[in-house]
């Protein structure tokens, strides 16, 4: 039986460093059984929020709690929450196994857990090697292994895909998916939406320390635009037909060049069918997917450009 996931609740969280507000009146909840993406540009306050949740940073006001408790009050935190925060938190002279055993000892877990989690993240071969010689990807795996030693019901991972090769990212994806399906809470931060797009069920988007959007990915996708690139020598005919169709609403047509259109609100098949009916010659009909990244940038770029670095 898998450990129970807990609800993570952030309520009116504000954190100021001197005069700078890293997080401002932020509220959201993260549900168990789902993978939640915590998104925002670099410097938007993601890491600060996670560190508040983990008792490493003291909020200026508001709360960030795990299952209704402050992290610092958890009697056995390693068994409740596993977290990775930065890949640099290793003593370079310590071996991977040594690093994990330091944690299993402190958490009063059996030593054998160290080798178990090393195997889980595929680092068994490197168990006896010093972390100083590890690549960024290996450090990420080791950090994940450390988060897993207590078999926690909550996983909080800060930019876990950084430094992973495509194979590693695919592995991470299915790993997190499996954990969520076991009923655990999985919160993954990223500054690139496309990186977690295929992984997450829910998204929480913040910008400049404030909440921009919280909800399921479908809701966000609904807010976004499914786009199809169409190339045709009879651009005007097709455009007129598409705009006629637009009468039913939600269709947007953009002329990219004299022979190219970007259409949103219609499936490629629908456009193809329309073109056939109008006897329009098509040279290209490519669904370019939901342009979530553009939407994400738009959502997080409000106000003064640049923002906090």
């Amino acid at each position, binding site marked *: 039986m898998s450990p129970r996931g807990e609800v993570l609740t952030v309520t009116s969280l504000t954190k100021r460093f001197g005069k700078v507000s890293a997080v401002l009146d932020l509220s959201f909840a993260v549900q168990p059984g789902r993978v939640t993406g915590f998104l925002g540009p670099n410097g938007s306050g993601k890491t600060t929020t996670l560190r508040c949740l983990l008792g490493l940073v003291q909020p200026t006001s508001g709360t960030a709690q795990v299952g209704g408790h402050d992290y610092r009050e958890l009697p056995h935190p390693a068994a409740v929450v596993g977290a990775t925060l930065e890949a640099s938190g290793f003593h370079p002279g310590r071996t991977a196994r040594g690093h994990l055993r330091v944690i299993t000892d402190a958490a*009063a877990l059996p030593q054998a857990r160290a080798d178990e989690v090393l195997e889980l993240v595929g680092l068994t071969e490197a168990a006896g090697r010093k972390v100083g010689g590890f690549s960024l990807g290996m450090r990420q795996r080791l950090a994940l292994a450390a988060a897993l030693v207590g078999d926690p019901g909550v996983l909080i991972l800060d930019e876990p895909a950084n430094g992973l090769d495509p194979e590693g990212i695919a592995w991470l994806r299915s790993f997190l998916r499996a954990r969520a399906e076991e009923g655990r809470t999985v919160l993954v931060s990223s500054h690139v939406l496309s990186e977690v797009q295929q992984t997450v069920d829910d998204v929480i988007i913040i910008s400049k320390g404030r909440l921009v959007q919280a909800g399921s990915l479908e809701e966000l996708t609904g807010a976004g635009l499914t786009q199809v690139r169409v190339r045709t020598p009879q651009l005007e005919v097709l455009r007129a037909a598409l705009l006629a169709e637009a009468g039913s609403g939600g269709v947007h047509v953009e002329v990219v060049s004299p022979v190219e259109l970007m259409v949103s609100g219609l499936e490629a098949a629908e456009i193809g069918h329309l073109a056939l009916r109008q006897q329009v010659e098509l040279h290209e009909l490519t669904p370019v997917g939901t342009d979530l990244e553009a939407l994400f940038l738009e959502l997080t770029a409000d106000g003064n450009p640049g923002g906090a670095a």
Partner: protein
Amino acid sequence: MSMVRSEFRKVTTTKVLLWLTIATIAFSALNVVLLVFLTPRAMDIDSDLNLLLDPAYVTNILGAAGSSSIFILILGIIGMTSEYRHMTITSTFLVTPKRPRVLIAKGITYALLGAALGLIAFITSFAVTLIALMTEDHAPVDAIIALQILGGVVLAFAIYAFVGVSVGALIRNQVAAIVGALVWVLIVEALLTVFVDWIGKWLPGGALNAVLQTTNVTGRGGADILPTATGVVVLLGYAVIFGILASLTTLRRDIT
């Protein structure tokens, strides 16, 4: 207890302890050798003065075990500050979010390590003393005094390592903490002792010497000294006060 085990594993899975143990052994041995062979007798063959015939001087030679105390202080400082330096403090506080507990576990761990190093330092100086004196005329080595010195160095190093941990918690920057401690021990405290003669015995170094039951052979000799038991309390007091100060200030800081 599991936390102390974790701290032991931290220190035994890196090289610092090994280097500082080697330094302790080497420094203790070197001090004995210097004290035995750089006496007036050795410098001036015609001199009829032979310090080695003075029992107090022989006691002083055995007391060289205490001369490596600075390495013990540094061991404690590194034990705490390396967590901040390598940011392992993050995973330490994730497992143990009640931070003063980490400080206490480290205090206990390093006190035990300090005691062990005190034993090693004593064995080194005792063995080297016996060997070095073999070919010399000398006053007898008193077993009771040797045991007193052993007890003193073990206790002093245990508490001093704890002082180091507390200093490291208070000054999280490793270089600043070590340089600060060295400047304090080697310069500030020595000067204070010279200019304000009553203060020396109450300072950490003075209290350390009281526990070691020796006036420091490398200097500050002759300064008056607290009774051993008072020295223990004062030295322990520094460790605890620095630790409490750290718990109220630096230890509470955000880990970012």
